[in-house]
């Protein structure tokens, strides 16, 4: 039954990748990265059990903890960017 969940996660990953490649705005791509991150956490947890090595959950835990740092960095980047170029769009 892990297989069904894995397949659903992998399909969702490809959908997220499609969104990342299609855009159209840069934020759609950031959203796709974030989605991909949570999907990776799920995939790693499921596969750890599929392989019968639950001690490898450390990896999923690492992603769950630090994956959102990238999005915060994007927020800071946009904030500084808008301060510097007030006229242009990102």
């Amino acid at each position, binding site marked *: *039954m*892990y297989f*069904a*969940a894995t*397949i*659903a*996660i992998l*399909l*969702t*990953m490809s*959908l*997220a990748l*499609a*969104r990342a490649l299609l855009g159209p*705005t840069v*934020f*759609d791509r*950031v*959203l*796709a990265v*974030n*989605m991909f991150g*949570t*999907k990776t*956490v*799920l995939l790693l*947890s*499921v596969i750890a*059990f599929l392989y019968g090595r*639950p*001690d490898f*959950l*450390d990896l*999923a*835990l690492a992603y*769950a*903890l630090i*994956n*959102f740092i990238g*999005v*915060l960095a*994007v*927020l800071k*980047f*946009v*904030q500084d*960017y*808008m301060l510097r170029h007030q006229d242009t*769009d*990102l």
Partner: protein
Amino acid sequence: MEYAIDIASWLLLIAGGVFVFIGGVGALRMPDFYTRMHAASLTDTLGTILILLGIILQAGLSLAAIKLAAITVFLLLTCPTAAYALANAARLSGLTPERRVSDAEET
């Protein structure tokens, strides 16, 4: 008892997979950025909880279950924060929600 737990965890895993997939479809098909974000973050949270709960049932009372519970809690904290930061960044850069429906009503 074994069977009951197995069936429950399978149901949770399948339901979680379905929700995750719906979230993915929503993120691909919705018309503008904010609705896509809504679809992605909302169903993501539910699907994530269901899948991780399904695995926790399989893990039983062990270190793995505690780790999975920690993963669930951290994801529940970080996903909405990421969504907040993202929406804020988009709003700061001047991206406005599309208002096609209400425009149509006005005219």
